Every structure is written in structure tokens, then in C-alpha cells.
């Protein structure tokens, strides 16, 4: 159906102007000028989507290179497809039928005459076969040679190569240990602390940490017993234990003329489920000597595998600043913008130049560290569940805080975009920078406060908490930060008494503004009886279940809110319709976002977290104690057919986690497809129908646990 439309490429010109604006703004951080006389590619295909495709295209535009985008069915209106000079349809929404299908992409390359391909990150970026296919057709792959991809793609091989290149690797022993003495011997060779566990045990199971000989003996005894009894396998793993591990990585750049250099480090210690959340460059932890040692080892590894283009060598760093090689990523990293901010190097530009065969123009000594940069990964996910479970939806309102100084926002979406279940739920990478870490963090706080995202659940509450966390601010972080600081999961900002009053006061002012306006009709036949409004309003604001009686007065230039004997003065020069409210409470600058106003309920975003405030006239609160509590209707976790029809598709399986609002199946009735969604988050317990079967009204299609 509607296949005739597949070949249409929609072009909406007015988008582009704003895109160029963004592109120009991002350029301002770069100090690597474009040499227009230098030969380069005429046309580059970007084999990716979303923000990274847009990011690559910005540099292409800067360099005067034409761009080709590929888009899947779900990305028909996506920003990257609009931004490119040419956009080609590549296949249905699932990436294994579109962005991962090499033959289709090769066809498009032939059709469009693209001379080079930038793979971005993910998808085909570290696929040696793809690199080889391109080479066979004489198309340049903007990335490392396939040999390097292969060498670094294998965990074991890459460690061996690293060892050969004199890169620190985590010292360890894996095999049968005769007795406790041998274990102590091995432990001494490695150097304490060491971690001892059964080789066969997965993950951190049965892991014992030894800080001295005695503990090593105990660890050997317990672990070898466990190895024999639980696994029937005597082998033990004794490895250097990295206490307080930090994840610090080195950005390297190499050309095909034997030049290689490092663009300093990025610290990506704030992680959840091994995914990075907040990154910064440089690292607060490294001193110049460690930085140089790390950089030189990274460069040595790059040289060892004849690396070209941009790459990243990841290290684990312990509390004594010992660093150990983890792996090398042979692609452009998600978090490359912070390196660009502090070095001024446009990494994509250098990748393109290197792929064309040019020599790097800068030397190691040219690479500065200018100030500090921080990146937050803004995801469409619910941070209150395991630090982030994906959510989906439409961006009904979306404003990036790029009007603020020293803010860069790399995104591939715009107001109206859909965050679909098919791809990574990243909304954007919000980057701020400054002369020092403090300034960069302050800018980040402000940027997060001013970032307007509506329609999807997002992780700004968590990001804002991390950025303002005293431990993070002091720089005392490691890869377990989130789990140490929020052992029971993230709960949102805990308001202090003063903050609670500020939230209540702001909600009260919004309520008052609304009430006063409600009585200000512009075309009434009767002159209003004066005074229409009382001089002061007695209201009750209920914040987090706590009733706070307040008196609110609107004065000429401000509001006065009296809560609990304390008077708060709030400015009144904001609009009730604005998404972001810049409030000055008792002279203090505060940024609120009014998420919604519905009846008595005002949802305010404050310091990242959304608070629900109920504002009622005082007499309504007095009467409300007479109203019976109504039992809350729990979401059933059942999906029932709303009508008779046929089940076109079921997109979930038993055991799968679904998010609230996620599509679980589609019913066709009345020649219309109706998407049914989960009414709460949870794990699918059972699916009672199969695709293609007919269902009657109110049939139970699936249940959540």
C-alpha cells in the first residue's frame, strides 16, 4: 500500500536555514580552517542516521562537499534526510533491513556517485566486510583500514597486540594454581590488590579481593573450593584488581603518512550498565605526566596496527593513576565533541582529509587543552527505572538551549520528530564548555534547565542531579558512581525545605496569574464590578503530599508569597504560556519549566526533576478533608482488543520488557490500523494470540507480569 510514495523525497526548505545556523554556531569552536584549494571528495554518503549523520554533514557543508543521506521508512521525515543534498530510501524501519544492509547501500553509492562513505558510529562503522566492499568498488571508507578494524575488533588479539606495543594491560593469570604459595607468588608478581575468582564463574560472581599475602591465601582456598565444587573446573583467574576504576580514553588521529598524534583524554566514568552518561574533557584526575604516558601508549598502539583516521583507546585507571588498556574503538566516538571543544580540532574534517590521503596538518605540540568541556547524553528514557529504560513518543515541543553561550547541542531530531522503538533512544548530546571545569558545569546546569523536551520521558532529571552532585563536582568519581550514590535507584531530586517553598511559591504565582487573567475579559458588555479580585489570595499548595498554606499578592512589579511566615518575592515578568520560566525568587535566579497546567495541578520542572503541585483556594482545601479518598485505579497491565478486527502484528514476546506507551500490537479494523500500547511498564507475561488471527472486542491479547 502506498508504495508509490516510497520514491518521493520530501524536501522542506525552511528547515535548512535553521540547520545552517546550527552548523555555523558549532563551527565557532573549530580552529582548523578549511583549505578550499586542497582537493577533496565531491560527494560523501553518510551511512548512518540521527545526530551523527547530521554532525558529519555539517563538516561536509563546511568543506563544500555534497552529501548523500540514507533513510529508512521510519526516518522519512528525519532531520538527517532533510539536511542532506540527496536523500535515498534504504529500506524498512528495522535497521537489519535498512541501515545494516550493505548491498542496498552499495547500490545507492553507485546510483549517487558518492566517492566516499562516512559510517558514523554503530551500524557498519566497525564492520571490516563493509570497509572491504567499499575498497573493492574504489570508494573511500572514512575510517581506519580493515586490518586495523579486525585487529582491534577481537578482544584477545587486541590485548596481545597492545602488550607487544608496550601498552599497559591488566596483569593477570588464568590457569590451574597448584597451591596457596603459588597463588601468593602470582599475586606478588602482579602486585596487590588482586582479584581472585574461579575462571568458570561469570561476571563478578565469587570474586574475592586480596590486599596482602594472607588474603591471597584465603582467596585461593575459597575460590579453588568453589571452582571444584560449583563448576568442576580447577582453573582460577588472578588479576590485578582495579580499585575505584575510572574510565579514561585517549582520542588518537593518524594519517597514512605515518603521522599519529593524540588529542588528549576524555573521562567517561559516569556510566550505567556500561553505557556512558556524562563525559568530560580533560579528566580532572590526570596530571600532565600521566596524560603524556597514556597518549604516547595510545599512539604507539595506533602505529602498531597501521591505524589511520580517528580512533579511541580506552583505559581503566585506578586510584594510583595506574592505567590499563581496555580496548580500542576504531571509529568516531559518540563523545568526540568534547575533545573538539578543548582542542579546536574538527575531527570529522581530519577524518575526511586523511581518507582523501592528505597528511595531518598539526603536530602533537599544536594540540592544546583550552578550558573544559562536558557532555551529557540526553536520552528518551525513564531515569527512575534502572537509571534509564527506553521510552518512545513524539516530541510535541522541543527547544535546544543553544541560545545560551558556550553550549553545543548535537542532535538529529526536531520538534515533531518521533523517537521510535527501532533505534537508539538518544535525543541529543548536550555539550557545554568554559574556561574551567566549574564554568563548564555551571553552563551545563543552565543548559539542562533551559532544555525543553515534551512528549517523551527523558533523563534530564538524572543528568541534572549528577552535574550538581557534590561528589561529581569535586571530581571524586568512578565507574560505579551511580550505583554507589543511588543504591536504591534514582529517586529524583530531594527538595530541601527552602526549595520546596520555592516550588510552592512559583506554582502559587502561576495559579494567581491564571486566575487574574480568567477574570479579565476584553469584550464584556457589563463593566466589571470593582474590585474583581481580592487584594490577597489565600491558597494551599500541595507539594509532594505536604500541604503548604500560603497567601499570594500580586504587586505592580512582583508577587509576594507568604508561606509559613516566610515571605518570598517572585518576579512577574514571565509569560504563563512560555515553556521556560526565568524566575527570580528573593533575588535568586531560578529556572522553572511549566510542564502542564491542568485544573488544580501544575507540573513544574525544577532543577531537572518534575514536581506535581496542586494549588487550591484555601476554602477548597478545607472542604477537601470532607472528600473521601478514592481508591486509585491501577493500570491493569492487560491489553485487550478495543474492537473486532485482525491482528496485523505483535511487536513483543513473552519475557520482553515493555515501556509504558510502547506499541505492543496492531489491530486492523475498519481498514484502519490501530496501535495498542502497554498501559504500564513491565515484562510481558503472555501473548494469547498470533499474528494474522482475528480477535473480537474485549479479547485479552496480552498480559504483563
Amino acid at each position, binding site marked *: 500500500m502506498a508504495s508509490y510514495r516510497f520514491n518521493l523525497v520530501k524536501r522542506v526548505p525552511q528547515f535548512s536555514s535553521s540547520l545552517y545556523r546550527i552548523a555555523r554556531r558549532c563551527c565557532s569552536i573549530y580552529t582548523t580552517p578549511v583549505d578550499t584549494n586542497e582537493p577533496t571528495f565531491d560527494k560523501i554518503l553518510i551511512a548512518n542516521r540521527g545526530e551523527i549523520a547530521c554532525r558529519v554533514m555539517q563538516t561536509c557543508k563546511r568543506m563544500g562537499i555534497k552529501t548523500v543521506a540514507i533513510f529508512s521508512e521510519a526516518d522519512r521525515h528525519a532531520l538527517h534526510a532533510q539536511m542532506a543534498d540527496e536523500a535515498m530510501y534504504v529500506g524498512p524501519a528495522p535497521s537489519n533491513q535498512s541501515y545494516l544492509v550493505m548491498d542496498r547501500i552499495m547500490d545507492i553509492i553507485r546510483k549517487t556517485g558518492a566517492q566516499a562513505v562516512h559510517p558514523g558510529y554503530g551500524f557498519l562503522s566497525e564492520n571490516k566486510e563493509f570497509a572491504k566492499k567499499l575498497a573493492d568498488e574504489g570508494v573511500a571508507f572514512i575510517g581506519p583500514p580493515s586490518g586495523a578494524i579486525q585487529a582491534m575488533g577481537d578482544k584477545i588479539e587486541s590485548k596481545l597486540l597492545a602488550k607487544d606495543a608496550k601498552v599497559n594491560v591488566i596483569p593477570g593469570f588464568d590457569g590451574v594454581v597448584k597451591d596457596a604459595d603459588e597463588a601468593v607468588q602470582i599475586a606478588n608478581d602482579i602486585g596487590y590488590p588482586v582479584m581472585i575468582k574461579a575462571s568458570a564463574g561469570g561476571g563478578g560472581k565469587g570474586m574475592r579481593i586480596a590486599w596482602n599475602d594472607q588474603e591471597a591465601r584465603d582467596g585461593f582456598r575459597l575460590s579453588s573450593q568453589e571452582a571444584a565444587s560449583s563448576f568442576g573446573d580447577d582453573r582460577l583467574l588472578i588479576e590485578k584488581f582495579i580499585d575505584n576504576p575510572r574510565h579514561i580514553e585517549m582520542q588518537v588521529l593518524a594519517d597514512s603518512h605515518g603521522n599519529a598524534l593524540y588529542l588528549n583524554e576524555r573521562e567517561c566514568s559516569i556510566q550505567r550498565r556500561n553505557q556512558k552518561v556524562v563525559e568530560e574533557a580533560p579528566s580532572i584526575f590526570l596530571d600532565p605526566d600521566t596524560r603524556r604516558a597514556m597518549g604516547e601508549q595510545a599512539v604507539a598502539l595506533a602505529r602498531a596496527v597501521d591505524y589511520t583516521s580517528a580512533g579511541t583507546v580506552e583505559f581503566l585507571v585506578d586510584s594510583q593513576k595506574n592505567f590499563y588498556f581496555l580496548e580500542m574503538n576504531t571509529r568516531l566516538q559518540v563523545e568526540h565533541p568534547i575533545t573538539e571543544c578543548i582542542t579546536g580540532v574538527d575531527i570529522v574534517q581530519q577524518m575526511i582529509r586523511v581518507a582523501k590521503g592528505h597528511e595531518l596538518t598539526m603536530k602533537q605540540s599544536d594540540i592544546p587543552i583550552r578550558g573544559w568541556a562536558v557532555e551529557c547524553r540526553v536520552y528518551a528514557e525513564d531515569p527512575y527505572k534502572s537509571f534509564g529504560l527506553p521510552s518512545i513518543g513524539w516530541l510535541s515541543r522541543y527547544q535546544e538551549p543553544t541560545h545560551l553561550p558556550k553550549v553545543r547541542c548535537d542532535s538529529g531530531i526536531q520538534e515533531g520528530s518521533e523517537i521510535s522503538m527501532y533505534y537508539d533512544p538518544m535525543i541529543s548530546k548536550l555539550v557545554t564548555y568554559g574556561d574551567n571545569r566549574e564554568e563548564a558545569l555551571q553552563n551545563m546546569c543552565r543548559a539542562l534547565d533551559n532544555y525543553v523536551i515534551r512528549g517523551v520521558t527523558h533523563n534530564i532529571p538524572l543528568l541534572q542531579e549528577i552535574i550538581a552532585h557534590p561528589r561529581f563536582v569535586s571530581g571524586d568519581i568512578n565507574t560505579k558512581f551511580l550505583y554507589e550514590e543511588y543504591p536504591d535507584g534514582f529517586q529524583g531530586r530531594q527538595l530541601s525545605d527552602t526549595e520546596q517553598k520555592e516550588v510552592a511559591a512559583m506554582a502559587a504565582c502561576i495559579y494567581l496569574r491564571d486566575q487574574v487573567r480568567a477574570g479579565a475579559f476584553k469584550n464584556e458588555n457589563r463593566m466589571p*464590578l470593582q474590585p474583581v479580585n481580592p487584594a490577597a489570595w489565600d491558597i494551599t499548595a500541595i507539594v509532594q503530599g505536604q500541604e503548604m498554606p500560603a*497567601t499570594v499578592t500580586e504587586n505592580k512589579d512582583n508577587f509576594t508569597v507568604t508561606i509559613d511566615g516566610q515571605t518570598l518575592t517572585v518576579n512577574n515578568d514571565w509569560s504563563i*504560556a512560555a515553556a521556560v520560566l526565568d524566575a527570580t525568587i528573593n533575588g535568586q535566579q531560578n529556572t522553572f519549566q511549566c510542564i502542564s497546567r491542568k485544573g488544580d495541578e501544575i507540573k513544574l520542572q525544577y532543577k531537572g526533576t518534575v514536581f506535581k503541585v496542586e494549588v487550591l483556594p484555601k476554602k477548597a482545601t478545607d472542604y477537601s478533608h470532607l472528600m473521601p479518598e478514592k481508591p486509585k485505579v491501577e493500570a491493569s497491565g492487560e491489553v485487550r482488543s478495543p474492537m473486532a478486527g485482525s491482528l496485523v502484528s505483535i511487536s513483543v514476546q513473552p519475557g520482553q520488557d515493555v515501556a509504558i506507551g510502547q506499541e505492543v500490537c496492531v489491530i486492523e479494523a475498519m481498514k484502519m490500523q490501530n496501535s495498542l500500547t502497554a498501559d504500564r511498564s513491565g515484562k510481558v507475561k503472555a501473548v494469547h494470540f498470533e499474528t494474522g488471527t482475528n480477535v473480537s472486542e474485549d479479547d485479552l491479547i496480552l498480559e504483563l507480569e
Partner: protein
Amino acid sequence: MLVCRHTTFRGETTTIVCPASQISTNKNMAALVKHSRSLSGFQARPACLKLLRAALPRYYSALPPAAHERIGDKRRAALTGGGQRRIDAQHGKGKLTARERVDLLLDPGTFVEYDMFVEDRRAEFGSEREAVPGAGVITGRGHIHGRPVFLFSQDFTVVGGTLSNAHATKICKIMDQAMLTGVPVVGLNDSGGARIEQGVDSMSGYGDIFQRNVEASGVVPQISLIMGPCAGGAAYSPALSDFTFMVKDTSYLFVTGPDVVKSVTGEDVSCEELGGAQIHTALSGVAHRAFENDIDALLRLREFYNFLPLSYKDPAPIRTGEDPADRICPVLDHLVPLDPEKPFNMHDIIRSVIDEEDFFEIMPDFAGNILVGFARMDGRTVGIVANQPTKLGGSLDINASVKGARFVRFCDAFNIPLLTFVDVPGFLPGTAQEHSGIIRHGAKLLFAACEATVPKITVITRKAYGGAYGVMASKHMKADMNYAWPTAEVAVMGAKAAVSVLFRGDQDKARREAEYAETFANPLPAASRGFVDDILEPRMTRRRICRDLHLLSTKQESRPDKRHANIPL
């Protein structure tokens, strides 16, 4: 909240009772008393008598003390209603008393009570009752956000709020004055029904009210809020008013109660199952919306009142709009899926176009395939009618037609411009619909749309097929501005259906469908004939509509002279 302050005024110590807000400065008591005198509604509060005495010592104190006492006694009796025990019982049911409801609904200090001293004259039919204070209903007027309103609030604590002749006369009095002055009437219903011992006197009361409901229809908006039982004849007054709202769990509407049902049909049914808020908002369509509890209902009613003009002579209200009229809505460019079989949520479009996402939906739980409700555009009230593709594909069925028609007629009666968003695949097919009379019910919506002379603006977002295209305020019904989005397709039917009729037996269905779609699945055929005035970039919709409404605010249109039209009921 009232506070007491002792003060000396004109050499006499007196207690001043007034809202806390008025006394907060506490600087000049004399000025305060003067100010309090100007506040209407204060006379009704017994506590204020002292204030009045202080303010007007000469006239008031001249009255003989016995009369004083008697007036005071009567006033107190009226204010207490059925007594503390019954008030507690009312609270125990999770309901507020009649006076508390008035207090919450109206702006503070604006209530002017009528007929506080009216009593039922005598007890009949073995009733031992004393005179019934206030005849079981509180009537009067007041302000909602500074605009006048007439209201009655039935007092369940007084003889179960049953309707006696005097009770009805009180209601009729305010309805008469409402019509004379062009001010809406709000009824807070909480009544056990007719005062049985009064017999035909009570029945005549209902008749008088019905007559006034009908006379007032189209003159001033009438709103009924059902806050308790409302049974038998009483149920018809809400049915005759423009909007009927209910309170969840505590209100019931039925013609015959569960006991009678049981004795006549043998059905065992609870009040809630027979005529609770859930039944009437989702199943019967009798009520237009339900609220959580008394407080929620009354506060939401205040919000709702602000959308309405006071009478048919008044324009739709305009208030200061803080949402920019020229706001561009990029999200609208993305909402309509290209695949004609994929639904989208019409609420998203409405929310984005209107002021501050503030949509007061009418009948949200009934006939969800059409959405109706009030919103504002640049501060001006508009009525919105929209197909909802997520329900039955947005097709029109009997319930949707009736729901839409009634709403359109209300808007037309009260000068509220109509904004129609179209995505309609047609009327719902099937024997159920045909046999129940989709033709005559569908005609209601058609009739209402044609009849309406208020500004009419229509946006075709996607499908506008067949007869349903005509019904949804098309150009042919003298709509003022008709727009199509680039995704619009105005045609007799969809490609698949059309091909199966036109090319029956043709092997190459796909090609034919593509051809058909090429020809009809775009707004150009309609635009080239002038049936749509412009093809609009979705993002520009709000801006254009705001401008149109500004222009159309002076629209004058009249129809041929007649007694009245004959809508197919």
C-alpha cells in the same frame, strides 16, 4: 476564610467579620468598614449584621427588637438548612452541603441570595413537618471570575432536597430574571425528587421549570451539575439544559429508580449501574462529563464557565492570550502519517493549535470517534469539532453524529466560532447502524452544520471521503474558510474501495490504485475547484486561523425568515 476583629467604631465596641484578605493591613478600620459595605453579598451573612449595625446605626437600630429577633431566627434557620445531623450525614456521603457548594462555585463574597425567607406553606398528607426553611433550595446570583451567574443549589439536608411548589417557584424566579438580564443559569442538583405529599403542586413545579428551561434555551447557557440523586421528572430539567455534568460515585440520574425497575422488570440493578456517572458519560450519552468529587466539579465548572458567553446577544468571550497568535507549530508537519491506514491522535493536533493546550473536552468518554470541546484561539473562545482516527478510524456513527450536532448547535446559538478538523473515511457501515437509523441521525449533524451561521473554519488534515466530507463543515455548507493540508485527500472513497468498484475484475489492481491515488489522494482536485480556499502548511495552521477569526468576528449572516427550522430529531 472569615476572621473576627474587635474594634471601636463610632464609640461603640463591635466585632467586624470579614475575609482575612480584607483585614490583612489592619491599619484603618473605619475605611475597612466603609469598604466592606460596598461588598455585595455580605448582607447574607449573619455575622455581617454586626458590621451593618456599626455602619448604619440609625436605620437598623430603629427596628423594634422583636422583629429583629424573628428576622435573625429565620435567617439562622435558613443558613443551617436541615440541621447539623443531616449536614454531617451529607458530609459522610462525601458530599458538600448546598451552601458550601455555592461558596466554592462563586467568587468570594459575591453571592446574593433570593427568597431566603420562602417556606413551604403547610404540611400536607400526614406530614408532621414544621415549615421547611428555604423550601429545600438555595437560589440567587453571584459572580464567577467577575461575571454574573444565576444559580440554584438544592439542599439535600432539607427534606431530601425534594421539590415542592415553593422550591420550584424559587427556581423559576431566578430563571426568569436570568432570561431578562441575559445571564446564564447553573443548577446544582441534589434532590430526592418530587415532594410526594404535595401531589400535583409538586408536579406543577416541574412543569414550570421545564417550560422555563425550554424558553431559556438559546437565550442563556444553562448548565446542570448533578451532585446527588436526580430521579424521575427531575431528570428532565438537566436533559433540557445545555450541559449536564456529574460527580463520580455520588450522583445518579434516572427516570425510575432501582426499586421500581425491580418491581416492573425484575432486574436487579444498583443506582450506580442504572444511572451513575460512568453509565451516562460513556454509555447513554446523557451527561457531558464527570468529575472526581464536589470540589473538583465546582472548580472545573468555574473554568468551563469562562469559555461561555453570557447570552445569545453577547459575543464569544475574549481574554488576554499569552500564547502568541502567530506561533508556528512544527510538530503539525509530522503528525499525519503518510500511510492512509495508520491512525494518528487528533488530540495532538488540537493541543498544538489552540492556546496553551487548554482544551475543555465535552463528552470525552462517549462516541470517541468525534471530539468536541471548547478552546481558545488568541484568547477567543472557539468550539472544536474533530474526527478522531484512533477510534473506528474516525468514521461517523449514530452517536458521533448526535454528539457533534448538539455541540455545533450550542456554539451556533451562542456566537462561538466553529473550528473543524477533518479526517473522516465516511459513515460507519453495517446493519447495526443502518437499522438504528444512521440516516436520520447522521442528518442531525448535517443539519446543524448547514444551519450554523457563526464563523466556520475547516481544516482537512487527511481523509475527507464521501458524504462525510460534506457533513464536516465543507465549503458547500457556507463554511467561511476551508483549508487542506498537503496530506489531504478529498474523494468519494479511498483508493482500494474505488478501484474495486471502478475496475472490477481488473488484474492490475495495484497499478489502478496507484493511479487513483495519484489523481485523488491529494488536495489539488478540491483546491482547483475552490472547494478549499488554500493548501496550508500544517505548521502555519494556528497563525492562519487566528487571523481568520479576527476577520470573521464581524461576520453577519442571516437565513430565510421562518418560525423555526425542523431539525430531523
